[in-house]
């Protein structure tokens, strides 16, 4: 079945099984592999993207549900042309503090952090814990994620 969805600002036509999770549409069909598979059950946050500006788990959103909507992935918040000031600040803080270890969960962490800072520009530790608790990092870089969100908040 064919759907039209705006991906990272670009109107895109996709023709897939309507039940296909958005995660696999992004990764397999559109080759946007920055969004990661971690659990397939909305338990880890590795697949976090923005749907109409809100952070969601793309493994639980079916292709038919994104028809006519707006999806932003890690690729869409990267680079001069597409990055918002919040996304730029988050990525710069992540690099400044060398947050990543294996790095596999970090695109999802960053999409959640951008979502948080868009809603709450100066989050407390509690705000961070609540907003980011769905994003698992097995390297346990949490200590630096917290610090990097505060760092980004300073520069926005």
């Amino acid at each position, binding site marked *: 079945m064919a759907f039209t969805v705006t991906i990272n600002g670009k109107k895109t036509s996709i023709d897939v099984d309507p039940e296909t999770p958005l995660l696999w549409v992004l990764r397999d069909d559109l080759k946007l592999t920055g*969004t990661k598979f971690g659990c397939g059950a909305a338990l880890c946050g590795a697949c976090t993207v923005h749907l109409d500006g809100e952070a969601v788990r793309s493994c639980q959103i079916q292709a038919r549900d994104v028809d006519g909507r707006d999806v932003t992935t890690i690729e869409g918040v990267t680079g001069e042309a597409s990055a918002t000031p919040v996304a730029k600040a988050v990525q710069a803080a992540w*690099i400044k503090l*060398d947050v990543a270890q*294996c*790095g596999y969960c970090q695109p999802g962490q960053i999409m959640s952090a951008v979502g948080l800072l868009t809603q709450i520009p100066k989050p407390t530790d509690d705000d961070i814990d609540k907003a980011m608790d769905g994003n698992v990092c097995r390297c346990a870089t949490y200590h630096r994620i917290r610090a990097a969100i505060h760092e980004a908040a300073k520069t926005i």
Partner: protein
Amino acid sequence: MTYTDLPNKLTGIFAMPVPKPPDESRRSFLKISGGVGAGLVLGLAAPLPKLGPTGAQATSGALAPNPFLRVAADNTVTVIIKHLDKGQGAATGLATLVAEELDADHAQIKTEFAPADPIKYKNFAFGVQGVGGSTGLANSYEQYRTAGATARAMLIAAAARTWNVKADDITVKAGVVSHSSGKSATFGELANKAAGESVPDKPTLKDPKDFVFIGKSFPRVDSPAKVNGTALYTIDHQFDGMLIATIARPPMFGAKVKSFDASAAESIKGVVKVLPVPQGIAILATNTWAAIKAQRAIKVDWEKSGAETRGSAELVAEYKALLDSPGTKAREEGNLEDAFKAAVKIVEADFEFPYLAHAPMEPMDCVVRYDGSSADICTGSQMQTLDHATACKVLGLKPEAVNLHTVWAGGSFGRRAIADSHYVREACDIAKAYGKAVPIKVIWTREDDIKGGWYRPLYVHRIKAGLDKDGTIVAWLHRIVGQSIGAGTPFEALLVKDGIDSTSVEGANNLPYAIANIRVDLHTTKGGVPVLWWRSVGSTHTAHATEHMIDMLAKEAGKDPVAFRLAMLKDKPRHAGVLKLAAEKAGWGQPVKPGKFRGVAVHESFASFVANVADVSLRDDGSVKVERVVCAIDCGLAVNPDVVAAQMEGGIGYGLGAGLKGAITLAGGEVEQGNFDGYDVLRISEMPRVEVHIVPSAEPPTGVGEPGTPVVTPAVANALLSGTGVRTTVLPMNKQRYKSQS
């Protein structure tokens, strides 16, 4: 022995490192570094192989005097990384070493993973290519520095020749070669000429006082790509015509396919082929979602007669029954029987440790392209030689016909360092069975991963100790019961000696405390659950049992836990050093705020020494909240202090997640967990503040990937013992509720 026999006959050439006393590790370090120069010269001028589907080609006109670096005309310096980087920072660590001796600029450094080559890229601790046991940096320290110094000397020689000046008057700083006359050139400008210079036999390495990066700061080389989503992991590789494979895997360890009905799976759009393979039933599809749906849809009747049918409760009961009889002796000093008779107080505790899954964020995966006469394998390969040799064997190809491309791995924690290379093997089995020359990407779902075995073994311990009238430990009996990681694997001959698997007792048989009468023994059990090293291996259980028991004894003796330990560590300055440092930085001895408890633990693993002081409180429901951990580490010279700190922070989080709530349990032989709901892992709201303090040291560098993991759980348990009086002998901690005594 042929190359493809390697995985079956590792005897004598492959040793996972076991903890060594510092003097011994120093000796072997010096011995290793003595051999580096020769290895490097042998490898000189070898053409660099093509490094991957998207990897860079050797640039013409580049300076590539050894297999570890390439200086190109575009002024980039590419460091060839022989170890997998699964987050521990191997790429950054090795790049730091090259950049230091080359006097390069951080911005010009790039990295590439090395191809499989057991000669050029071997790990000196193993004898083949691979990384584990926190050996990555230690075994490369002089090798990669020498590689950088070699290129630097050749760049200087080229500049001296070009400018017709003396080499002694040339300096190199931040990627620029300069002469006192004012002449200067970039590495890129000199690379082509430098390639024609003779390669120095023994380039001079820097005096450590001149280091600009080592021991100071060298930001991670992988941060930008990992932050913008462009870092390619195995699962991200896409090729034209590629098929995605999943495998319907047995529900019990040892179950086999009896029969299967693929009709529902085959009717799913995108499914191309259903194939029986030794591991189960493989499904090949044109897209991942179809492969996952088909895996769920396929109906398999399993033959369970040869399967492990016991549950965790039965295993624990069987193991506990062995605690009353002596096991195989791992250590014995003094006369334990007399010492117990003379003791005025005896303290005894039995401990239970569950199976643990590694659960790296990127589940196992492997890409294979096989055309009948050659193959490419792309995966986060941690044991390149084993994975490569396994692929050669399964596909019936010569080593030169198989290219192994190592790529970034989304975590490992031991999971990818697998003796039987099963996730490479199954990909090759599928490619061979399918028989068409298309790329195939095998992916594991999270359920495959959590239910798939290769766990930290289930263990039961008993420690019985006696105190004399002065409160000194005079007798120590430590009995361990559990499955061997090495038995039945190619590692057996090296890991298992006189009936003792060193990974079962490490951390217990080298208990550092001065105790006159001591015995450590082991019952090795057999079972059908495949087990594996899990970040910090034996120390995952021995550190908790020993360090928690020390606090139980300190309490009985009425002594301060730090002073009690220090009195027994007079001949162990590095243990004592980290213990004192952590205690001082944490404010040990000062009053703790109401409702908070403080505990300490110290442990050596992989030749590094770590102490933790944990500040703990209780939530209203009696569950444990760890608020702060102060960590001190002595890992010899800290090459990249920020990476060391990151490994301590992450190791503490990884260990704490398991200590608080990690458990894989079996019922009737079936794993009861399947995803991050059942197998709960540490989340950000549970992460304590962590402060890391590194002991200044000029000793050779030792590992940091694992030693941060095992110390936090006993430190937390000791805080709880002090604040609640409760002993934490059954892990994870969420099995009980604690209540403050104050």
